[in-house]
């Protein structure tokens, strides 16, 4: 039975969230989490970080910029 350390578990986090770890590794990963609240906290906050990053970085293009873009392209394309 494979035993994973905290280091192994943290190395695997991205693959775990992608669901690309093998069944055997997944079992070892979950066994480690059962006995390690620090890794559980790390996993939860890592996952939440991903979500918050998407929220914070989701900026919208200002309306007037959209209009300027259109005007710019028309001018450039007319000019050849």
């Amino acid at each position: 039975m494979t035993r994973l350390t905290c280091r192994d578990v943290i190395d695997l986090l991205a693959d775990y969230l992608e669901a690309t770890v093998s069944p055997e590794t997944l079992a070892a990963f979950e066994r480690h989490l059962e006995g390690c609240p620090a890794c559980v906290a790390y996993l939860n906050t890592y996952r939440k970080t991903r979500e918050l990053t998407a929220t914070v970085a989701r900026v919208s293009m200002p309306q007037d910029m959209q209009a300027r873009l259109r005007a710019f392209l028309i001018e450039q394309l007319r000019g050849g």
Partner: protein
Amino acid sequence: MEEAASEAQLIARLRGGDTDALETLMARYSSRVYRLAHGITRNDADAEEVVQDVFLSLFRKIDTFEERSALGTWIYRVTANAALIKRRGKRVQLEVFLEDQLPTFREDGHREGDRDFLLADWSTRPDEELVGIETRRVLTRALDQLPDGYRTVVLLRDLEGLSNEETAEALGESVASVKSRLHRARMALREQLTRALVRASGPG
């Protein structure tokens, strides 16, 4: 209907020099192009110039587009290139050592550090707090501090929702490099958030 125009038709019309097709392309992609450009350059004025350059080159260089890749991925590629060039030479000396933001381990592979800090799980705090002004500020600054190549990967994967393979294609890098940068960048962002949230109000 314009919206229903398939990608192949759209490309054909662009190749024919149809400026209406450019309008369709803008309607479909300009918010994504802006978001990525802004995420990489970190300011409005540079993002605006990048968006203009990108659409102009999309129209002028559509002949160089190879149809084995998806149009969306190609657009991300053109955008990331333009934004990274714009950013070059301008970057503020903010970049902190990533190594300081990564977890450290004892010889036996256990995490090292203050117990309260290691056990702090702020993920269950209410959303009002987590997307509040202070958290936004911390996370924005943490994103500013990431090396450009790392931030770009995070934006393509976690904001734009590209796969590791698509991100690798858009950046002309290996999948292994994308995966490694993504993981390190997420850990650095997580660390900054944890330091700010746990310092502000104690663990948990």
